[in-house]
């Protein structure tokens, strides 16, 4: 599903080179639920951004569904994000001027689906997260937990094979966090591969595999499931 081979990322600021990620080796199989933890500034977000094709690596090889991502141009990466990856953000990242229906519609329009197919998917996924009756509401009219559910519906509407969640419960109270986490577990059980960055050890522990990032290096904490392979510390 996902293979990173010697992926590195460095930034140059004022003649100072910062190594955010160093020679990451990782293989994730389809259906895995991987949590990513680590201290602030350890490279978690950079790792997530590269995994989600939001940034490009400085060096290394990244294969997603067998396709070498490092060879894709911006347009190709956009298409790949739209077709294969779903995103859930800490701040939900819903578009405040659009109602729930239009928010979930955003990635579907980029996919180029026709109106009836889009409508079917939007209604189905909003129903799945329990918000079908509020699809004409604006995000500001919902609680944080409800907004994150809309974001999950938006991420799932394109039927992604790979879901990336960046601190999905970071802005939620514990009850809401549990609810969202349960939803993610259900999604994973339905076959979607999930990579989740979190600060919360208890939530991380619910993943089938835990990755720890520190100073740009990746290491494996636990291995609950044999179909997830962390290829050592780079």
């Amino acid at each position, binding site marked *: 599903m996902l293979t990173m081979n010697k992926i590195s990322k460095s930034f140059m600021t004022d003649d100072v080179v910062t190594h955010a990620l160093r020679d990451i080796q990782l293989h994730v199989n389809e259906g895995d639920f991987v949590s990513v933890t680590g201290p602030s500034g350890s490279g978690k*977000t950079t790792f997530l951004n590269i995994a989600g094709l939001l940034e490009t690596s400085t060096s290394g090889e990244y294969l997603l569904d067998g396709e070498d991502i490092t060879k894709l141009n*911006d347009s190709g990466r956009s298409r790949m994000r739209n077709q294969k990856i779903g995103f859930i953000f800490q701040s939900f990242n819903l*578009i405040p001027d659009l109602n729930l229906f239009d928010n979930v519609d955003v*990635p579907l329009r*980029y996919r180029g689906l026709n109106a009836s197919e889009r409508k079917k998917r939007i209604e189905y996924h909003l129903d799945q997260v329990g918000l079908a009756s509020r699809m004409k509401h604006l995000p500001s009219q919902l609680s944080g937990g409800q907004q994150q559910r809309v974001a999950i519906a938006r991420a799932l509407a394109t039927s992604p094979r790979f879901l990336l969640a960046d601190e999905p419960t970071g802005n939620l109270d514990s009850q809401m966090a549990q609810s969202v986490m349960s939803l993610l577990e259900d999604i994973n059980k339905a076959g979607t591969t999930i990579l989740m960055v979190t600060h919360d050890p208890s939530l991380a522990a619910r993943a089938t595999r835990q990755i720890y990032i520190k100073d740009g290096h990746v290491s494996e904490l636990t291995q609950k499931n044999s179909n997830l392979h962390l290829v050592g510390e780079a």
Partner: protein
Amino acid sequence: MLNLFSGLELGPIFRALMRNKIGALLIALQIALTLTIMVNAIFMMQERSQQMARPSGLDETNTFYLSNTIFAQNYNTQTALQQDLQRIRQTPGVVAATQINAIPLSGGGWSMGLQTKPGDDLEGTGTAVYMVDEQGIDALGVELIAGENFQSSDIVWREVGSTKWPPKTMITKALAEAMFEGDWKKALGKTVYIDNHQPVQITGIINGLQAPWNGWNGVERSMLVPQQLDGRGSRYFIRTEAGRRDELMPVIEKMLADSDRGRIIRNVTSMEQTRDESYQEHQATNTILLTVIIVLTLITGFGIVGLAMFSINRRTRQIGTRRALGASQWQVMRYFMLENLLISSAGVVLGAAGAVGLNIWLVSTFSMSPLSPVLLVIGVVALLIVGQLAVSYPALVASRISPATATRGRA
């Protein structure tokens, strides 16, 4: 093509705009105001340009005139005039010369009313009057299209204060059409009446000769009468061989000045210069109107850029999120261009109504012609293009926002 325009977001963009009306509304109103003013200003410029492009009927490039003012006492004005004309006509390079009472397009001249029947209570057709001799039409360079030129025996002297008119006239085709129901050919040989009762026979029709007043709606209506003014001030109108005007202007001025010290020769002016001076106000007005159009368009363009840049800065994370969700750079760019198109479309619809309204007021207040729908369409298209050009840079900036802004960028 399918990829370029698939998933157009007109509906969501419109709904989002409806939730943030103020900025968009202000830009739409600015576009509306610009269109209203721009279309009417272009229309006024167009009218002036058309006026300036009208042919005067003269051979403007090869003609000039000068003033002769006599100050000497005991002066035989008639003899001096004949001698002056003889000297001018004998100058190599001169085609023809005549004394004339007024200069076309100069702003000052004579006008009378001509009527087809005699009578005090009849309304005549207004016409400019040019008093010339038998070389008049050659000196002016006008084209005789019917009838015949004056003979030297037709020319009569007109003393200062006289109200007597000669029995013959040549009139312009436009004057003939105005007097004879649009058929200028009917005019030839007819007797018309000047000064209510004095009969004058139309012996010739000339193609065109504009009056001295370019803003007059009867500017194409002129008549030539075979008269020479007997006075202490006169003007000579001279036509030279092609390309020799500038060379002969100082030669003739000097020759006349040297030949008689009892008068002053001044105001030696080419017809081209007279035309330029005549339309100076038109040109100045057009320049001002053009400046207003350019400034308004630039202000509108900068307004669009400003609003778009503000909007992009406010929505940086939103744009990053769209990119993360799969929007290509082109799709982000298209979003802002479509948004601008919607705002501009509202603006041009309002502006088109405003332009028509302003034109109706101008037509009723200043007797202008109605606005051409083609001009309105051109104005609408031009402003839509300006809008798209103005938003293209901010849209490009937006398209370059990294998708990583979704996880790192400002809210």
